């Protein structure tokens, strides 16, 4: 019933964003008649509406294709698509673990980009067979020779036999299919061994519950089999097994080397963890398959519902989102400005934005997001460490704090040499430490910097884009915590500290940033009945002070011949406007002041 392993090829496509991965996948699906032409929509595998819109793939969707090779045999090709963005490296490694090979797509006009290198190395590390493909050879600026040279020099792979392809017009697609069969090995696997499969993804379906995407390593699985998850020990009866065409289609059984899904009445995604091994409950495998490293969020921000009473709605939406994006974490928090919300953790900025957008599109939740921040490690004078996710987690007495450590990343930039100057300047401004620079070709430079993650997530992408007119590509990896001269800058309004306005920054920047925030607040906080000082302080030391002058404007209106009601209504209207302000001590602060501090851009939607 199950396909012979000799006739199976499991592969993924590795490419930098925009190098044409999704288009190529579509061509492969077309060429194998997996989907009828009339049902084809551009970039079929990007199932999220959002992905198709942004032209990026976040969530991998597997597809099974039947291909009759030149040797006359019928092969099953399982394509496991991979996300191209650095935030989603973990998804790439998941996909790769389910494959024996990968197509390495390089844009023949643009050459190797930072992302290509990182993912190619991930594939090499996992022992995958690589098929290099130069895409977009139809472009006049395409230069396969240069691309080949870059692959050989930067990645160190032999690119002499690369397929020349144009996913746009279909050139080379047949050759790619053939090379998948000839260059990528078939999966190993023992049909007689106890059933063992790797869960490489899970999605939640409202009708079927959790659907686990699996790659079978040994044995067979079919409906009514009793299975167990090795990490949790939970047992289930299989209700359905199937393959991706790419729509899910039930099949009788899945055997070694095959890629498919199982439905087993699993209610929650946490019971079907990605990276876990599924085995037979009666005849379990002796040891779990190598899993994935647990991905930890590195960027945090607060999500708050725009309508305050929608907090429970937001919680439900986050829970559901977490069901098919297990990398998201969240915990309740509250903010003076925004009320109740959640502090959410993400793998990166794009991941954060996508989550926000999905909450809106799929669950109808409109929210405001606070600016992202990182986790700091605060070493206290008693030798212990405290984890600080927000400024208020820092000790209120700075003398108790011996040292602050912050997460660093190593950023690799690929860029034309004309932009090296502005790029270096940007990295220096961002407190970067130069770690290397080399010429890949006479015109292209690889620049490596070690940067604090906090600076990176602030606005690095945007600044890099403008410094290089979008010609630079980047990749980064986390390189751990390092001590930095960081301080918590407190904000005092009318001598009272206001947590919502405090922030963490490098000591050298404290004055500058303290001053700009104070100036902004001065504009936004209306004049009060008295003079209001706005101060920035490090510990007890005041570093910035600006004053909001006392209110001098008032309307002394006539009370018309005993028309008390009218006057009261006017006052009530005035009061209504004030209600939206937050009373801090004797100072009323409008919501906008908090929003401005958070710099929430509401025009994103």
């Amino acid at each position: 019933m199950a396909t012979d392993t000799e006739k199976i090829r499991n592969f993924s496509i590795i490419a930098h964003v925009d190098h044409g991965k999704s288009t190529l996948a579509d061509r492969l699906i077309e060429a194998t008649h997996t989907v009828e032409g009339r049902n084809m929509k551009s970039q079929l595998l990007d199932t999220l509406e959002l992905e198709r819109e942004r032209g990026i793939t976040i969530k991998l969707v597997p597809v099974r294709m039947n291909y009759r090779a030149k040797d006359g045999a019928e092969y099953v090709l399982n394509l496991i698509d991979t996300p191209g963005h650095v935030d989603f490296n973990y998804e790439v490694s998941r996909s790769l673990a389910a494959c024996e090979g990968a197509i390495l797509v390089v844009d023949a006009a643009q050459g190797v980009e930072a992302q290509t290198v990182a993912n190619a190395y991930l594939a090499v590390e996992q022992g995958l067979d690589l098929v290099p493909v130069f895409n977009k050879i139809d472009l006049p600026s395409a230069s396969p020779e240069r691309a080949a040279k870059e692959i050989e020099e930067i990645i160190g792979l032999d690119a002499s036999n690369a397929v020349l392809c144009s996913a746009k017009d279909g050139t080379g697609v047949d050759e790619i299919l053939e090379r998948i069969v000839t260059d990528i090995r078939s999966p190993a696997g023992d049909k007689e061994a106890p059933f063992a499969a790797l869960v490489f993804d899970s999605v939640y379906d409202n009708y079927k519950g959790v659907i686990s995407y699996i790659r079978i390593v040994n044995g067979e699985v079919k409906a009514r089999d009793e299975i167990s998850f090795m990490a949790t020990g939970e047992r289930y009866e299989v209700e359905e097994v199937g393959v991706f065409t790419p729509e899910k289609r039930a099949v009788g059984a899945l055997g070694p080397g095959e890629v498919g899904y199982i439905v087993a009445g699993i209610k929650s995604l946490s019971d079907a963890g990605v990276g876990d091994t599924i085995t037979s409950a009666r005849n379990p495998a002796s040891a779990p398959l190598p899993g994935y490293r647990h991905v930890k969020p590195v960027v945090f921000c607060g999500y708050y519902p725009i309508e305050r009473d929608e907090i429970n709605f937001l919680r439900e939406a986050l829970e559901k989102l977490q069901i098919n994006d297990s990398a998201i974490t969240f915990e309740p928090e509250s903010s003076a400005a925004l009320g109740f919300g959640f502090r959410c953790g993400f793998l990166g900025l794009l991941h954060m934005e996508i989550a926000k957008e999905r909450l809106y599109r799929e669950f109808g939740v409109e929210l405001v997001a606070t600016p992202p921040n990182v986790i700091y490690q605060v070493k206290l004078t008693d030798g212990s460490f405290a984890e600080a996710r927000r400024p208020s987690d820092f000790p209120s007495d700075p003398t108790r704090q011996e040292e602050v450590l912050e997460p660093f990343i190593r950023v690799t930039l690929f860029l034309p040499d004309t932009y090296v100057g502005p790029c270096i300047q940007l990295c220096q401004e961002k407190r970067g430490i130069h770690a290397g620079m080399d010429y890949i070709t006479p015109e292209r430079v690889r620049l490596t910097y070690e940067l604090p993650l906090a600076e990176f997530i602030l606005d690095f992408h945007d600044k890099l884009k403008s410094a290089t007119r979008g010609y630079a590509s980047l990749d980064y990896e986390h390189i751990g915590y390092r001590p930095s001269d960081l301080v918590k800058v407190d904000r005092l309004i009318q001598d009272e500290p206001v947590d919502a306005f405090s922030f963490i920054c490098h000591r050298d920047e404290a004055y500058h940033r303290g001053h700009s925030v104070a100036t902004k607040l001065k504009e936004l906080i209306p004049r009060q009945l008295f003079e209001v000082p706005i101060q920035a302080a490090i510990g007890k030391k005041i570093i910035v002070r600006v004053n909001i002058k006392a209110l001098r404007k008032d309307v002394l209106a006539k009370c018309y011949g005993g028309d008390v009601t009218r006057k009261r209504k006017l006052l009530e209207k005035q009061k209504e406007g004030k209600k939206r302000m937050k009373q801090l001590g004797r100072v009323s602060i409008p919501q906008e002041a908090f929003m401005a501090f958070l710099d929430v851009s509401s025009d994103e939607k």
Partner: protein
Amino acid sequence: MYLDALEREISARAEDSSAVSTLYVGGGTPSVLSLASWERLIEIIERGFSFSGDAEVSVEANPGSLSRGHVALWRAWRVTRVSVGVQSFDDRRLKFLGRVHNAAQASAALALCVDAMFSVSLDLMFGLPGETLRDWMTDLKTALSFGTNHISVYQLTIEEGTPFARENPELPEGYAQYRYAQWRLTRAGLDQYEVASFARPGYECRHNLNYWDDGKYIGLGPSACGCMDGTRWMNAQRLDDYAAMTLRSLPIVSEERLEGERAARQAAVLALRTKKGIAWETFAERHGEPAANAIRRNLEHFPGDIVANGADASRLTPKGFRLGNVIWSEII
């Protein structure tokens, strides 16, 4: 038509009135009524109401229409106070306000009333477009030169839907004008006994004080407001509607009755308009301890130079008067 309707309203009201202690004939300048009409008005009022011995009877006078005949008639009747709607002693600003009188007529009207030995009040308005502090100082100086024992100052406020609102003129902030008025008038011996009113001791307008004390009053005529036993009402605004309604019943178009803390808060705002402020003991008797305490706590948030919170009473300081609307809107 107006007087006939008024007569009907008064006869409908007459039964629920006891002796009148203050009467204010104002709101749309009664001095435009002819002498004959005035005689009829006096007759209607005298038939409808009885007055207490020391009753305060005020009449609003428009400098453009006030005549010696009016003054003589009022003198002969029971009028004690005349409030002259001067607004400004500057012809340009009077024209902006659409007043029919000029500065000379205003001066003449004031002189007439003072000479007739009335207790005279004059109304001045500040915050007009293009008005400088110096202009306002001149107005106040002129106003004081008549020796009146009561001056009211108001800031121009633009109401929506009026021709002023359509022009949307740029107005001065007004704070300095008001601040100066407080200083200048107080120095001239006129105490600020209410946010907009300055008087020599003993010459406060009792009629207005009754409003701020949350007292009872009857309003008669189109758009008049009244308050009896906690219920406030307003009459129809257009004369023809008003007149038609008096044929059937009372010409009331809206009524409102506040209960509990809302009533207390409204009373507190009214009381804070005056120098006396909120006397806590009587306030608590009238509105209950919990409401009184809640309002007291609100007032304690304000700095001492704005709200003087004493054990017996809370009142606005002169600076507090300048910021009155902000404070009232906090406690309403």
